[in-house]
């Protein structure tokens, strides 16, 4: 493995605006009187509800159990009473079922499991089970159950574990602060993950614009054969395919998974969650989230309980100085725009971002002038302009032929397009249509 990272083709350099919150230490959010835990927070099957209205729950107690292998359990963020099981606005704009908990203010522990102090000698299977029991999903974005990634199927060998500390999205600093303030936990988590996978070592990839975190991690990394790999600043460095390429030089084939090139990628926050679950016996009930944006009065990084309403989170950050144009969950390049304040913090909410109206360029799609910029920045080397025109004419078959499925929806192409074309939306739409066509054919 070479020390010099490879440069992937394409990518963009948006102004990162991380200074707003990069120097703000992580604060623990105070206990609130009401939490709304959205039921389905993971990719895969929804969990199965175990409580009903009126039940009294303890902090960490199981609220719902995994609904299958690709599914994770859900735990109570604090002690209190289940006041309702009802709908609440979901992150994608459609109402989703959620468990409403009235906190009793005691915050009394009712952990479902014990810490495993001697994890070095614990069998990998047990550790993996702990990761599952703790309800850990990928905290870097998609919310994919971590234990699934840690269970490579028979015959698939894994030789590299990569921790993703790139945090290439502008504005977000949660991972940065976490690596700086809990470097030991990150490294510990990496070591545990490596042990689960039967590996000796792990690599942490970090963009060079976080020199303090790199320095800090390098200080403590030696303990567990963890290597820190600084990466050039180039969005989307944190996308797993690009990350794997930068660190190992392997290209994940289209339509394949990291494990097909013998890699597992986990976000650094996921690693910390794993460390917490194993060593301290804490399930996944909180996460570090950046609350930021120009309209936010005091941007910063908070450790929120899962289920914290966004409105409360914004209140903690001092409220707003101006009416924002957009409220996003996640970063400005990939985050999801919200139409209400009713959404709550989920396990994969890495940022709460307000964008002021002068930063937003409203959709005013003009025809593609074929300038080719999108083609040059696309890290997946597909042809955004052509695909987008195909989709515009509902030629989804054509889009499929042009490999729209390879698109990772990083948004680089839309970012540079001088015609402000909704390229990314076209691709998302095409993928949905193609998937539904495939489904129809399989029926």
């Amino acid at each position: 493995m070479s020390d010099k990272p490879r440069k992937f083709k394409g990518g963009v350099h948006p102004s990162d605006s991380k200074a707003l919150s990069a120097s703000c230490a992580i604060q623990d959010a105070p206990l609130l009187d009401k939490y709304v835990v959205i039921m389905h927070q993971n990719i895969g099957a929804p969990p199965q509800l175990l409580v009903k209205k009126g039940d009294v729950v303890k902090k960490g107690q199981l609220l719902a159990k995994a609904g299958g292998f690709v599914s994770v359990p859900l735990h109570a963020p604090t002690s209190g009473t289940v006041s309702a099981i009802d709908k609440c606005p979901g992150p994608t704009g459609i109402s989703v079922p959620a468990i409403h908990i009235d906190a009793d203010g005691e915050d009394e522990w009712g952990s479902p499991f014990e810490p495993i102090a001697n994890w070095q000698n614990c069998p990998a299977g047990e550790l993996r089970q702990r990761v599952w029991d703790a309800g850990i999903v990928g905290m870097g974005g998609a919310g994919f159950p971590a234990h699934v990634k840690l269970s490579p199927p028979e015959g698939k060998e894994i030789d590299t574990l990569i921790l993703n500390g790139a945090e290439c999205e502008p504005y977000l600093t949660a991972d940065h602060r976490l690596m700086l303030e809990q470097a030991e936990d990150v490294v510990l988590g990496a070591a545990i993950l490596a042990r689960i996978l039967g590996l000796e070592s792990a690599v942490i990839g970090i963009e060079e614009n976080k020199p303090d975190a790199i320095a800090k991690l390098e200080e403590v990394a030696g303990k567990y054969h963890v290597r820190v790999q600084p990466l050039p600043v180039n969005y989307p460095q944190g996308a797993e395919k690009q990350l794997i390429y930068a660190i190992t030089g392997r290209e994940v084939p289209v339509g394949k998974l990291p494990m097909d090139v013998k890699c597992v990628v986990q976000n650094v926050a996921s690693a910390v969650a794993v460390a917490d679950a194993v060593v301290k016996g804490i399930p996944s009930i909180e996460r570090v989230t950046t609350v930021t944006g120009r309209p936010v009065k005091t941007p910063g990084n908070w450790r929120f309980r899962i289920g914290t309403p966004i409105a409360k989170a914004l209140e903690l950050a001092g409220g707003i100085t101006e009416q924002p144009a957009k409220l996003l969950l996640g970063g400005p390049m990939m985050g999801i725009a919200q139409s209400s304040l009713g959404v709550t913090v989920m396990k994969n909410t890495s940022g709460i971002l307000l964008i002021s109206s002068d930063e937003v360029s409203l959709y005013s799609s003009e025809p593609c002038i074929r300038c080719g910029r999108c083609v040059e920045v696309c890290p997946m080397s597909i042809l955004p302009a052509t695909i987008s025109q195909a989709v515009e004419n509902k030629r989804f078959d054509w889009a499929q032929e042009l490999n729209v499925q390879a698109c990772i929806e990083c948004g680089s192409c839309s970012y540079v397009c001088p015609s402000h074309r909704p390229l990314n939306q076209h691709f998302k739409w095409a993928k949905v249509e193609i998937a539904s066509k495939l489904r129809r054919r399989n029926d």
Partner: protein
Amino acid sequence: MELKFIIISIISTGIIGVLLGVIIGVVAKAFAVEIDERIEKVEELLPGANCGGCGFAGCSAFAKAVVAEEAAPGQCPVCSGDDVANIASYLGIEAGQGEKMVALVRCSGDISNTVRSLYNGIRDCRSAVVVAGGAKGCDYGCLGFGSCANACPFGAIEMRDGLAVVHPELCVGCENCVATCPKNLIVMVPAAAEVHVYCNSPEKGAAKRQVCKTACIACRKCVKASGEEEHMLVDGFLVKTNYENPPSADLVEASACPTTALRVAGKHAANEYQGVSK
């Protein structure tokens, strides 16, 4: 005139002709293909809209099916009664004309009646649902970006104030719109039924009222006015017309629906209802 010259011409060309005729005959014998000219004829009699409303891949596929008696002429929704009769009499078979069906968009929440966010993106319903579910307050309502109207080859769907409105007299029942709507709002109903509930949201009444002025709140006034579930059926928090036994148009007047979710199709198409604010 030189007779000889003419004779030479005739003979030489005649020989070529005989040769060709024989060759073609041999070829035709060797590669005989059975074709059925009735198919062509039926296709001629069909309207040629190629809309796929019959459930086949265009008019010629349908013609084939009709001749093979795998489909009845009446299955073509575009054919007028006369057309169907012509085809049937040509083939000497049953017309098999079904009941005329028209599309119904089960929503009345236009811009002035529903809460919506400022959606900024591709103006196509199927595309809008991938962004925030379409950014409409009501998760079940019409998004109003007109995918169905674009899919309709007969221009029977009008987009009015962010709501798809079917003009029943223009609708031939080809069902192209049904599969297009990402919210599954469009159903086919008998053209004879005039009264429909223009709402599709299974939410509780209170929740619906928060986002929409014309939602069906399941107050059952119409059910009572029509005589207890004979003409109108209750399904959770939503009431539906019983299309087996549809009510007459005066039911709308009689029941005084508090939200105007209950409408007469023709009047709805003519834009004669406004939401009731509360």
